[in-house]
């Protein structure tokens, strides 16, 4: 039998070893994630250009400037439009299709997730270049189809609104298959018998989806919904940077690209940092919502 001293020495050794196991990961996170987070918060209270030895403390001026700048209104509207398009194509559509694939199809349905997932492995920058040519109004296939039905495809990269749609499609191309796969595995938490019983009672499919499937898969769905927003806004950064640089006249910029632009185009470190902190606060609200809903979902699913 171990003595009390032995026990505590053993525990101390275990603790030290656990710390050593976590240390390499923790060091990387402190160096490249947590320290930068604090440093950016600090920078958001200063006016600086990243190279000058002088930093000027301006308190909340950067935040006030952001909130009163008319460009911020454009950026906020664009960001909302990106979110609406991404939620539609990367969340709602794959959610409904995962339901259809799981409960309304029987034979030959497994091949689709494998095929649909393939585009999730393709680099965003590759997607950006492919879509640029596919949607090229002069030589691209979409332009040719539009011509055939007698519509002239406008130069999308110069057309406000349309530019956001085409850029969002690059992010859809990246995330659709992945989200479909996750939502599909979320369907496992719906008992097959419930669906069969509802079908016997001739319940319409739309009711089966909203009344049975949605409540039972809410935790996976909320997770994908939130990741669609958090990741999607960062995914579209690549096609924005590569194809439009936020143009025409900020019409395709969003909250992420604008932060990059402030830092590496205009060298306004403080403005970039303030916008980044605001972005993170919005994401943290989403994180809080996820915890609430996912916990509720766990309750449902058990």
């Amino acid at each position: 039998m171990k003595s009390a001293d032995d026990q505590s020495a053993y525990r101390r050794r275990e603790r030290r070893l656990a710390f050593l196991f976590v240390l390499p990961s923790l060091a990387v996170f402190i160096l490249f994630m947590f320290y930068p987070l604090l440093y950016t918060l600090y920078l958001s209270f200063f006016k600086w250009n990243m190279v000058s030895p002088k930093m000027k403390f301006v308190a909340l001026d950067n935040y006030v400037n952001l909130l009163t700048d008319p460009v911020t209104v454009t950026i906020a509207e664009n960001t909302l439009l990106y979110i609406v398009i991404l939620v539609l194509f990367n969340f709602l559509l794959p959610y409904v299709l995962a339901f259809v694939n799981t409960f309304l199809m029987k034979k030959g349905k497994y091949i689709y997730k494998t095929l649909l997932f393939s585009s999730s492995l393709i680099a965003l920058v590759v997607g950006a270049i492919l879509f640029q040519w596919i949607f090229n109004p002069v030589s691209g296939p979409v332009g040719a189809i539009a011509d055939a039905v007698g519509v002239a495809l406008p130069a999308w990269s110069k057309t406000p609104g349309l530019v956001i749609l085409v850029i969002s499609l690059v992010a859809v191309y990246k995330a659709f298959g992945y989200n479909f796969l996750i939502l599909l595995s979320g369907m496992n938490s719906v008992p097959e018998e419930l669906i069969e019983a509802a079908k016997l009672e001739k319940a319409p499919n739309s009711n089966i989806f909203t009344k049975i499937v949605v409540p039972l898969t809410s935790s996976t769905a909320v997770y994908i919904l939130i990741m669609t927003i958090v990741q999607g806004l960062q995914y579209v950064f690549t096609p924005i940077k590569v194809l439009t640089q936020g143009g025409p006249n900020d019409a395709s910029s969003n909250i992420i690209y604008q932060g990059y632009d402030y830092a590496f185009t205009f060298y306004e470190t403080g403005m970039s940092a303030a916008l980044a902190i605001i972005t993170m606060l919005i994401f943290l609200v989403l994180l809080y919502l996820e915890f609430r809903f996912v916990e509720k979902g766990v309750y449902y699913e058990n």
Partner: protein
Amino acid sequence: MKINSSEIKWHLLFIILVLLLIYPLLFSLSTSFKTMSEAFQSSSLIPADPTFSAYDRVFTTINFVQILSNTFIIAALVTIFKLVTSVFAAYAFVFFHFKGKTALYFLLISTIFIPFTVTMIPNYITLSKVGFVDSIYGVALPQLADATGIFLLRQYMKGIPMSLMEVAELERASHLTRLRTIVVPLIRPAILSIGIIFFINSWNEYVWPAIMIKSEVNYTLSLALQMFVSSEGGTDVPVAMAVATLTMLLPLGLYAVCQKFIIGTFAQSGIKG
């Protein structure tokens, strides 16, 4: 059993979706074998007069071998480092008991909610202090702070029967021995598949190379692709599509060989807890 008539419409819907997602790949492949003038005149998927000239131009206009090896070295460094650190961290989170374990785990996992705009300026400054701006190490280092490996490996390790670990503990096997002789062999397929995912993600990475790299000798494939883009798409479409095709080759090749593993591991990443 034959396919029920009401299911046919769903199959049609899925087939259309698959075609829409596969089309860009075919477009890229076919355009890369076209001549420049054909690429502008026709959007047919079958090149009238297939030619390798775009691929020749890839090797003459950019230092493709150098760029390929940069991309490969970065992806390999990131993959190996992340796998090793994540295996150790995940082991600690599953098989050790220490105060603040859950809090630390959630702290690490919640970093997926930190947008890269929050870390980019300080990381740029840190890396410039050690001379890693315009260096492939400057691209690799910030990519290491990624919690997905810890999350996934923790899921797999939790599936290891406790009794196995208890037997090892009774035999006074050290934690390193348990990790080496029990845990790693049992989850080897998961480790390989997570490694493949890490490699593909780093291969495709654009944000950090775009911020860190200035000179062409240090370019990655993502940055090389950007050279073929101008506001209206540049002029040499076939060569842009040839580079795009070459960039996709490795991720899609890996997927073709081990799609079952990759799909299984990705499906895990949506499971919470």
